[in-house]
């Protein structure tokens, strides 16, 4: 009797251990996927809630040739408060990525709340006469501003 029971017991324990291992890996993987799904959902929801609008008119006055800067007013028409820093914006001027971007809240307060307006200054721009195109991207929302000098 003991001859049969011992191998059976070993096989039983082995099968349980393997099953537990498989279940453990499954739970671990699915937990990872769930976490990623949760983060992705929050990111997509934030992107949907984000909306900005460039309110400056396309006049040549937006470009200051002396200081080589372009000044644009941007309104937060979405539902989220956005950080009013240069890092919030991805700025592309005439197909070139620009990093010298400063942002100031112009209608009072420290934060760029919904309905608020910020002044975006893009520096180090040596623009000649002709048509120019500025693309501002905040959390997936892209706004295009075209003007002529």
């Amino acid at each position, binding site marked *: 009797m003991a001859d049969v029971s011992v191998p*059976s017991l070993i*096989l*039983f324990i*082995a*099968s*349980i251990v*393997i*099953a*537990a291992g*498989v*279940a*453990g890996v*499954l*739970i671990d*993987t*699915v*937990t990872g*996927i*769930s*976490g990623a*799904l*949760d983060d*992705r*959902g*929050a990111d*997509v*929801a*934030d992107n*949907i*809630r984000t*909306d900005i*609008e460039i*309110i*400056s*008119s396309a*006049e040549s*006055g*937006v470009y200051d040739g002396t200081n080589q800067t372009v000044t644009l*007013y941007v*309104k937060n*028409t*979405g*539902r989220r408060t956005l950080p009013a820093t240069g890092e919030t914006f991805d700025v592309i001027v005439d197909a070139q990525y620009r990093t010298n971007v400063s942002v100031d809240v*112009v*209608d*009072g307060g420290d934060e760029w709340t*919904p*309905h608020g*307006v910020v*002044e975006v200054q893009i520096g180090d721009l040596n623009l000649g006469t002709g048509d120019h195109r500025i693309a501002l991207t905040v959390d997936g929302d892209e706004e295009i501003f075209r003007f002529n000098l």
Partner: protein
Amino acid sequence: MGFGVSGSTAVIFLGVLIASGTLYTAAAGSAEQISDARDGDSEDLLDRRNTEIDIASVVYDNDSDALEIDVRNTGTTTLSVNGTSVLVDNEHEPSASTAVEGDGGTDVWGGDQTLVINISDVSAEPDRVKVIAENGVADSNSTVEVI
């Protein structure tokens, strides 16, 4: 051997149950967040489509350097006065005093009501005035009456 098979099946089944529970919670939460955001977005879109503003008159007083802008809400969306922005010659004017139908303290700018915006210290006659509602709908006027 029989116990081994049923035992391991039970363990794996339990694992699948826990995993699907976790996945469902995350997927449902995520879907709810996105659907909420989409709902809000479509409401905003509807509000935007129902919004229209019209600058009725722009009067510049040469003696007192004051600018008065009368804007009528010709849409059906009730707008926020504090959310409205004014650009004079492409420069933002944050310090404007406002009144809706004579009431200077209100933030409610309803349909068919006229918002009067007064800006002081405008040194020269402006060429162009632009008023932007809270949701980005704008109107501009280049006809400035000088008194």
